[in-house]
């Protein structure tokens, strides 16, 4: 057992681990159905069986990732109470509405995924495609609703805080706390971007090994448009989001930028001694002479862990910039060549960029969570007040760490076997979902 770690830290570590794990599967659950439906639709339009095969492969990937996402999401909904009972006891009613609507979206997602995966032989092609669309829409809706809860924690509204908890609760106001439009757009884009980059990276890897593989060129032509579009939109949405943080959560912004002294016309520090004059004032407020509050203007006990927030933010912005650059180059080549490019140099770049979407997603999530500390509900409830009185929290923390390591490795292995079965020269008889199943219970 690590010495000196308190139960609060173990609780935070367990919640953080569970979220970091779940977020990958949640993002895939949002985005893979879109890619799966796109391939399905391309198959219906062109009659090319490769697109059907691609959509079936993506459906299997969705099935595996959604199952892990569903159970790790269940872990989280229990952990809200198991780790933060005081938070739920006081604010459960304030944030119950978006959670309930997320439940509805989870329901329709699971229902139509069941029909899409197991019903190909049982329903008409139109209903089948419609089910795929419903899975994609439900996935986006559920990410939207759950992000609203996070917006509330960052920027709580819709209640009056008293010593014994919230009164005058207005759930609809709380559900759309200030900044909700930026945060939900930022999160949804990151889901599509991370998944599309990961998919492009996998197929770039195979094309480097087997340059002639037609199937993988087609797969790339499905992933690249979404990857490029999201990579270019994300910096714009991220900028709006940062401007909102600058107005509403100045401490978080100061930590993100490692900005200690309040300054008019603050420069942007890019690291390595390079400063962009007035850069931070422009980025944060759209005004070169705007005043940017520094950390020293805030009481020390309301500072987030500055170094962590700063590094996570740099990682997010850095990877995001690299991805936007790659998208520009790829689109340029696409425009010049009138087809999605797959030259070796570019494929190497996409292979390297493959994991960057997930890296940026995790880093961005760390920025918002670490950046809100020491609060669980900013300004009204400290994380330490919310934690469970149950002792020995090291035990569940290490248990879940081991379980998630095991599951993560297994998922990678099983997914890789799915991909490997599409390699040129791979033996047929790939794993298949039984399409003639039947279900019990009415």
């Amino acid at each position, binding site marked *: 057992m690590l010495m000196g770690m308190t139960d609060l830290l173990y609780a935070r570590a367990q919640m953080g681990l569970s979220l970091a794990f779940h977020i990958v599967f949640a993002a895939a659950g949002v985005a893979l159905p879109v890619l799966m439906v796109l391939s399905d639709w391309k198959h219906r339009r062109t009659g090319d069986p490769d697109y059907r095969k691609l959509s079936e492969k993506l459906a*299997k990937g969705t*099935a*595996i990732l*959604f*199952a*892990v996402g*569903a*159970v*790790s999401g*269940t*872990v989280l*909904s*229990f952990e*809200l*109470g*198991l780790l933060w*009972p*005081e938070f*739920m*006891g006081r604010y459960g*009613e*304030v944030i*119950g*509405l978006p959670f*309930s*609507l997320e*439940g*509805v979206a*989870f*329901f*329709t997602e*699971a*229902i*139509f*995924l069941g*029909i899409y995966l197991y019903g190909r*032989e*049982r*329903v*008409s092609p139109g209903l089948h495609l419609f089910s795929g669309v*419903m899975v994609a829409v439900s996935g986006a809706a559920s990410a939207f609703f759950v992000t609203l809860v996070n917006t509330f924690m960052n920027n709580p509204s819709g209640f009056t805080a008293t010593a014994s908890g919230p009164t005058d609760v*207005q*759930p*609809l106001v709380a559900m759309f706390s200030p900044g909700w439009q930026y945060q939900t757009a930022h999160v949804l884009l990151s889901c599509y971007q991370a998944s599309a980059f990961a998919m492009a990276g996998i197929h770039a890897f195979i094309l480097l090994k087997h340059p002639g593989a037609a199937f993988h060129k087609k797969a790339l032509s499905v992933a690249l448009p979404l990857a490029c579009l999201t990579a270019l939109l994300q910096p714009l949405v991220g900028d709006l989001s940062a401007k909102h943080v600058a107005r509403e959560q100045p401490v978080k912004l100061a930590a993100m930028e490692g900005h200690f002294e309040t300054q008019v016309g603050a420069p942007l520090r890019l690291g390595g001694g390079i400063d962009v004059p007035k850069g931070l004032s422009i980025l944060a407020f759209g005004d070169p002479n705007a005043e940017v509050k520094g950390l020293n203007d805030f009481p020390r006990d309301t500072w987030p862990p500055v170094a962590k927030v700063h590094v996570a933010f740099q990682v997010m912005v850095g990877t995001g910039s690299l991805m936007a650059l790659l998208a520009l180059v790829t689109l340029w080549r696409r425009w010049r060549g009138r087809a999605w490019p797959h030259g070796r140099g570019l494929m190497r770049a996409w292979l390297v960029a493959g994991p960057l979407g997930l890296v940026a997603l995790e880093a961005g999530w760390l920025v918002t969570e670490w950046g809100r500390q020491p609060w669980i509900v900013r300004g009204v409830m400290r994380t330490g007040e919310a934690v*469970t009185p*149950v002792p020995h929290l090291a035990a569940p923390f290490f248990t879940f760490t081991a*379980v998630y390591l095991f*599951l993560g490795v297994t998922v990678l292995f099983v997914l890789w076997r*799915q991909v490997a079965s599409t390699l040129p020269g791979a033996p047929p008889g*790939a*794993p298949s*979902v*039984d399409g*003639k*199943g*039947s*279900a*019990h*219970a*009415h």
Partner: protein
Amino acid sequence: MPTEVVLGLAVAGTFVLYALLGGADFGGGVWDLLAMGPRKAEQRALISRAIGPVWEVNHVWLIVGLVLLFSGFPRAFAALSVALHVPLTLLVLGIVFRGTAFTFRAYDTRGDAVERRWGVLFSVASVVAPLLLGMCVGAVASDTIRMQGHAVVSGFFASWTSPFALAVGVLTLGLFAFLAAVYLTHEAHTPELAEDFRRRALVTGGLLFPLAFGVLLLSREGAPRVWTGLSQTSVALALHGGTAVAAVAAFALLWTRRFRAARVAAATQAGLIVLGWAVSQAPYLVYPALTLRSAAASPTVQKLLLVALAVGAVLVVPSLVLLFRVFRPQPPGAPPSPT
């Protein structure tokens, strides 16, 4: 009817549906573990086919119940999460291994040995999870969770490890296994397979009688309010009587091989047992500290939650009907029919 009572009924309703649908999926795992005889492989294949398209959907009832509980009765959710931290954590681990192992078994195709290993994990988790779920229910029903203000003062183990709570755990496991066996008689493609599960249903159904009787006897000491509630109030007595009638009917219908009707009777029996618990519990969520009224969210929240429930039902109910129609059991030998 006061809104908090409607909301309480909605929570109870999600528990009933979770028991009938999600519970039967756990029961399927139990029969996977206990698969035997000449048709061992066919039994497992049938269970896998039956659960595959629906287990995630059925699982959502638990999430909905949980969300309604913490949104509608936040103080009760907080207290139960503290008092039952240990068994709930173990339950969640069971849920994780059941779901992932079932999925990996279908997609990790490195041969029979690997498939079997995932199968063992899936089925063992399917046994452990209902036991723990039942023990949590037993802990709540036994009124042994004590509070001072908002703090739980009755410890982290005593409430769910009492003989009564353990007995409720075993009863829950038996009930889920019984439901699965009855449903599977109707799902089976061949008469032989239907017979396999008919025998299993009759044996577990028979075991449920002494099990339920044992729980009732233990409740005199272990859960006195359940004992008086079940044996005294008229609503509880009616529910009790209904359960007994449904149980006998399920037995008779299984005996005479009317599987379709047996399914309805078994589901009625299980549903009434869960409702019976809810009624004997009312109006307390955690006795004596928290009632439906004292733990309820503010009236605005309650009303909006009911609206969200109604909106959700408009979307979810037709979708569920479609799902169950697409995957309804088909007569032996019939070709799959497009819907």
